[in-house]
């Protein structure tokens, strides 16, 4: 099956080479970080997690969102998702791989990463996160590859795979819940100390993942002969719509509790976001960008005419994705540290090497996704006539 990834057009190879270049640059910068230490990044004693952990958090959500396809298709036999489900599973594989890579590049002593296994510590949420993420990667590899292999032979998926498919549904919820618990259980960080963290994580994940998938579907439709079907895209668009509305609602709940109670440890972080704190306002423009893009996307998605339009839907999805990427991929983590436990403000901005390493990991994810999609599309193109999955 994999040989399909090694045959492709000029454009395909140009894309692969571009990704390899970005990946190479990231790797070169990672070697610099390996030698110099994490001081090469913009992180500091006060803001001790930054872009890496932010991207990790965001991508766990993208990975978890595959469940939005698996669940209707396998549990409710929703045939419309027949062609697109595998695309969601492959996004999950690429996203989890990126998550694990972001954890590794964030470690101060990556050479000791295996200490997490050598000294298992069930009291640490990070320990559980490692278990659920690796388990999820395994499940998606197993399910995706097996189902696609059967499809190539024109056979239905074997019976034994079903339990794994069903298991992957609660497992997807677990990866994002556990990731939210990384934050929501820390006593001294008012920004994160909220019971709605895990629901909020899931809400935004089910918006960002499927909107990425819609964008990818449009891209595939344009660049290959593969078409997941208009109906599938529209069904996904409805999922994104509900998820965006729910996300907005969850954020509103958070804002109500924070601003009506006016407990300073909780308010100060949002003050920093909305208008700046102690004269420092580095995050203010981005935060307003998040709000405006998010609301605009939600409105465009709610109105049926714009949601049904093949030109406006991708725009709405891109807006939703960008808004959630900034909110979860940068601000959620960084602003938890601003202000610091002494209520003073140290700001954070990533450095160039840090950004290059981050891009490198994204390139790795894109590379994995490209290869997997190439295989999937090729299998679909060779599909025996009349056979629909």
């Amino acid at each position, binding site marked *: 099956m994999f040989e399909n990834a090694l045959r492709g057009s000029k454009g395909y190879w140009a894309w692969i080479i571009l990704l390899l270049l970005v990946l190479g640059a990231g790797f070169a910068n990672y070697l610099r970080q390996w030698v110099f230490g994490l001081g090469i990044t913009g992180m*500091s004693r006060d803001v*001790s997690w930054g872009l890496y952990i932010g991207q990790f958090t965001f991508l766990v959500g993208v990975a978890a969102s595959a469940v939005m396809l698996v669940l209707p298709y396998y549990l409710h036999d929703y045939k419309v998702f027949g062609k697109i489900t595998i695309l969601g599973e492959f996004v999950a594989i690429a996203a989890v791989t990126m998550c694990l890579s972001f*954890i590794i590049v964030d470690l*101060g002593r990556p050479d000791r990463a295996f200490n997490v296994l050598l000294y298992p510590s069930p009291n640490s949420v990070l320990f559980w996160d490692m278990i659920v993420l690796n388990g999820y990667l395994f499940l998606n590899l197993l399910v995706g590859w097996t189902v696609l292999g059967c499809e190539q032979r024109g056979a239905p998926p074997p019976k034994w795979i079903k339990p794994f498919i069903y298991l992957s549904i609660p497992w997807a919820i677990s990866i994002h819940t556990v990731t939210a618990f990384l934050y929501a259980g820390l006593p001294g960080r008012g920004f994160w100390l909220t019971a709605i963290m895990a629901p909020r994580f899931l809400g935004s994940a089910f918006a960002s993942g499927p909107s990425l998938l819609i964008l990818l579907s449009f891209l595939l439709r344009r660049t290959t002969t593969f078409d997941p079907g208009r109906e599938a895209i529209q069904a996904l668009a409805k999922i994104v719509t509900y998820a965006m509305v729910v996300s907005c609602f969850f954020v509103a709940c958070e804002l109500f509790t924070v601003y009506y109670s006016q407990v300073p440890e909780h308010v100060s972080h949002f003050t920093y976001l909305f208008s700046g704190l102690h004269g420092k306002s580095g995050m203010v423009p981005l935060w307003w960008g998040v709000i405006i893009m998010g609301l605009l996307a939600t409105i465009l998605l709610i109105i049926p005419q714009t949601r049904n339009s093949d030109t406006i839907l991708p725009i709405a999805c891109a807006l939703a994705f960008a808004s959630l990427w900034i909110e979860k991929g940068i601000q959620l983590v960084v602003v*938890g540290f601003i202000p610091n436990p002494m209520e003073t403000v140290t700001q954070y901005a990533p450095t160039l090497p840090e950004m290059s390493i981050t891009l490198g990991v994204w390139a790795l994810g894109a590379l994995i996704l490209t290869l997997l999609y190439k295989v999937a599309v090729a299998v679909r193109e060779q599909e025996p006539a009349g056979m629909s999955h």
Partner: protein
Amino acid sequence: MDKTRRDFLKIAGLSALGLGAKPAADAFAQSAQGPKIAPIPEALKAKRWAMVVNLKKFKESGPDALQACVDACHTIHNVPKFDNPKDEVKWIWTESLAHALPNEEHHFLEEFVKEQMKGLPILVLCNHCDNPPCVRVCPTQATFRRLDGVVMMDYHRCIGCRYCMAGCPFGARSLNWRDPRPFIKTKLNREYPTRTRGVVEKCNFCDERLAKGLKPACVEACKNKEIIFGDLEDPKSEVRELLRANFAVRRKPQLGTQPQVYYIV
């Protein structure tokens, strides 16, 4: 090959296979009754180490006494000094009263600090909490709590994930963002290990000095009993007496971490 040598090899091979497991089995057997630690006769022992910082005394002694504590600690523990604040590593330092105790802040606190504390800041350090969140979150047990209450760091096990830094509500922990050794500006103390880049460090209540029967360096640096160190479980200890006679506060007690550094205001 002569016989003795063959026999030797046989025995060596056997022990590598089977007998080699003996010490490991012993180790497990031991841990069932609790680890056996060679007793250090000269060590200071306590059921619960705690510290009382007497702000009244610091007011009498002035800013030099504060600095003396910081210097004593940072010198003895080879704490690096970076020019870029981003890379900062510190174990004990000073904060204004309002920053150290943000929950006690009010509009007129500055006046109090000026009138009653000569405008002095206060010392802050790891609180060696009874219920430490840093220990709870660490995925490798590189940070752990000793039975006598000292929250310790294993620099050789830490993977530098910084979860403990996110977990600590007091900002007591520092990562070595880069190799600290070139930045040790004080005379190198060969009795205490230097650290590598990528590991977390913090105040250790001078466990290495306690083992030798010495009080922590900052306590020793106090000429006027500004900081008192002792066993909280011992009703006759000096720390207990101070807490009986004075009203003392702790940093962020509402978080339930049970800090064991007390401040007499």
